[in-house]
């Protein structure tokens, strides 16, 4: 699908839009000759983090953190880009003369905000981010800037995530209260899965956690990066699963497997789902979730507003999610804001 952003009258545009603007492939920095998180193969891509809607295969050259590059290779194979260049958090690189710096975004392991400085203007492209504590990644680093390019996944005032540790305790409590049932926790495979495991360990859950095959490789990668996951095992073939008794156990799987026949093999399964979307009852009911856990790797409404205020940015560009609400709110706050309407981002992921 082709969509282009509706151009604003020239007088209202920020001068930086002459060198940083959306193209069908994604946000493009013209003097640097690079795209940020492009949705199709390009010559040069800067990647904020490893989620599939941001990191795609087939680029000529990729510039990203070491963790993001490893994640891309795990998912797409070693040859998923022509060449890779690793950046460290905080170090300044020059791409065709444009100064570029990656700092932690607090979203998942290896996630970064990308800072571009040119002609006295500092632009921070947040990628996806959150401010809440996460034992599996570096915390968000606040960088004051002129232009802040923000996500808007949860940009409605109804979205206020619960403290993640409390949600983990609720799950542990439910497992202990219903020892005859198998608890199935639906999680996205990269980030949420490993964060939930770490949170459950902090909540004192020391049983073996059984993983759906799709979650194993990335969890092993987190372990290799020195993030303790405790005892985990892989649920292997169908036969093996039937033989074993998973009553009283925790099984983690991708959200799609919750509704799948796959989950029906376990003892009287109780479904849980960890996501910011669980704030809305209808969303939990759509998935048949019995225990909605409101845990997200994205900023909730108060975090979005607070972060934008703290950056001091006078100009905000909103990428994907509920742009209209955030643009309206920023207008009320006297901050110039517009939606970039970039194509290809999964605005419902979490």
């Amino acid at each position, binding site marked *: *699908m082709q969509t282009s952003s509706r151009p604003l009258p020239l007088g209202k545009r920020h001068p930086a839009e002459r060198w940083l603007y959306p193209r069908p492939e994604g946000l493009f920095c013209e003097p640097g000759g690079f795209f940020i998180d492009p949705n199709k193969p390009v010559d040069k891509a800067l990647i904020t983090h490893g989620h599939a809607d941001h990191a795609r295969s087939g680029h000529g050259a990729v510039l990203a953190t070491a963790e993001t590059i490893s994640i891309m290779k795990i998912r797409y194979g070693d040859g998923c880009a022509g060449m890779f260049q690793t950046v460290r958090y905080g170090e300044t690189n020059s791409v065709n003369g444009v100064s570029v710096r990656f700092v932690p975004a607090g979203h998942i392991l290896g996630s970064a905000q990308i800072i571009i400085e040119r002609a006295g203007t500092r632009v921070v492209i947040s990628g996806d981010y959150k401010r809440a504590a996460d034992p599996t990644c570096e915390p968000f680093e606040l960088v004051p800037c002129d232009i802040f390019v923000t996500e808007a996944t949860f940009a*409605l*005032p*109804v979205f*206020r995530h619960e403290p993640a540790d409390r949600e983990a305790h609720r799950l542990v409590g439910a497992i202990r209260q219903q020892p005859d049932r198998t608890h199935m926790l639906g999680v996205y495979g990269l980030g949420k899965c490993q964060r939930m495991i770490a949170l459950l360990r902090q909540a004192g859950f020391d049983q073996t956690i059984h993983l759906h095959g799709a979650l194993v490789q990335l969890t092993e990668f987190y372990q290799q990066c020195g993030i303790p996951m405790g005892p985990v095992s892989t649920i292997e073939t169908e036969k093996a699963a039937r033989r074993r008794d998973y009553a009283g156990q925790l099984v983690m799987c991708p959200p799609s497997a919750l*509704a799948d026949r796959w989950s029906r093999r376990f003892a009287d399964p109780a479904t849980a789902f960890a996501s910011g979307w669980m*704030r*809305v*009852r*209808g*969303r*939990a*009911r*759509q998935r*048949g*979730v*019995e*225990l*909605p856990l409101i845990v997200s790797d994205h900023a909730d409404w108060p975090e979005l507003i607070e972060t934008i205020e703290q950056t001091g940015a006078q100009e905000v560009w909103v990428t994907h999610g*509920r742009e*209209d*609400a955030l643009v*309206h*709110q920023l207008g*009320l706050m006297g901050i110039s804001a517009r939606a970039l309407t970039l194509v290809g981002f999964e605005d419902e992921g979490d």
Partner: protein
Amino acid sequence: MQRFARLLDNLAYTQSRNRKLALLAHYFQTTPDPDRGWALAALTDGLPFSLPLRRILPELLSATVDPQLYRLSRDYVGDTAETVSLLWPEQVRGYDPPALAAVVADFETVSRNDIPKLLSNTLDRLDISGRFALLKLLGGAPRVGVSARLAKTAIAQAFTREVGEIEEVWHALDPPYLDLFAWLDGTADRPDPGGRPVFRPMMLAHPIEDSDWPQLDPTDLAAEWKWDGIRVQIAAVGGDMRLFSRTGDDISRAFPDIASAFTGRHCVLDGELLVVRDEEVAPFNDLQQRLNRKTVSARQLREFPAHVRLYDLLLEGDDDLRELPFEERRRRLEAWYANAPAPLTDLSEQVPFADFHALSEIWSKTRASGIEGLMLKRKSSPYIAGRPKGHWWKWKRAPLTLDCVLMYAQRGSGKRSSYYSDYTFGVWVDDSSAALEPGEVRLVPVGKAYSGFTDEELRELDRFVRNNTTDRFGPVRAVEPKLVLEVAFDAVQLSSRHKSGIAMRFPRIARIRWDKPANEADTLATVKALL
């Protein structure tokens, strides 16, 4: 209030009917009077409040939430009570939840001017779940995936009774149902409905399957037309009369004409509620003008005259006929009617037939107004509450179908909130029609459907809508006219309320024709030919 809030939460997130029943049963067993009675009222007939929540809530919220953000949030969440419960500012001094009965007492006695203040103060004392429960309680039917019938079944289970025993006294009871619970607890006798008309659980039919025919002997069966109205029960006793829907909802207030036709009668009848003009059954659309109303105007009474076509006689005076065979009840019904016919009623005609081949001829050839198909009833069957197997069958006419083009989609609510799940579709205005300007849309909407597809198809349709949006109007999106939906429906009727001049009866999505080019969809002329 907290217990009730937790109950609503648990019910909302529980799919299994048995687990829901267990949750409800546990609640009614362990919650004291009168809280449990108020909760029961909230889950069944609703509490007797009529608070202008729709006006008050946005006003109260506007002090802290921008109206535009409220509107966007409401659109997204799909439910006002939930939206407000999420947006209401948290109190720093913590919660102080009132008892359910105290909330009911407060709102029963509050003066109109003090409603906003009381509502605001009560919301301040509750957490998100509590606020949600409060607003559902005050707003009428909570719609938490629990029907009134399920709540009554749960009580029956909790206190090892038959649900019919509860149904038969239900309409003689009032919240908070102290006499009902006293009986269930074993400390009092079963409440006596005395001179009040109550609902008797109705007998329902199964759709006939191909595999049923070989088991059936035509001489055992009676056939009647299946009329396209709504099934009702008339209960008249002691100068009082009630009209009940199939599920036992009291709809009398919308039908004073029928009520006055039964003044002074003493009987319980089963029939079809219809709008009938000059002895001709009007389209269902006309009946809809009379349904779901608390009051009815003189004009509506005149323009949409109600009528009941009688199927069955359950009680004649105090004589309970339900154990008798259908054949015998039918004779009693005919005698009762011949003796003193009630105005605005007639008897459902019996359709004589020699064998199933002859009946099939009749079935396939009849497309008279108001007829949905045929009913087959075993002559020897007693009147059994529920949907017993092997007694009554409905043989509906095959639905009609049309290929329509998806034009607009709207977000659903409840389980479908945030999905584009309500679809408006249209057909092509014929090319020969000259009134079209260049570039004018050549599609005209003919109906709206929100059922007939699987959850998986819903996700695909939702994706299609998001990827092909051409315009947005609040929760509605216009889409590029390129997806063909095969729509099934029971009939097409003339309608002045629709731009196309026609309305469909029971439209639902039969198939999604991803394969079919939109220009091959049907035209308005084809639709009108079905009239």
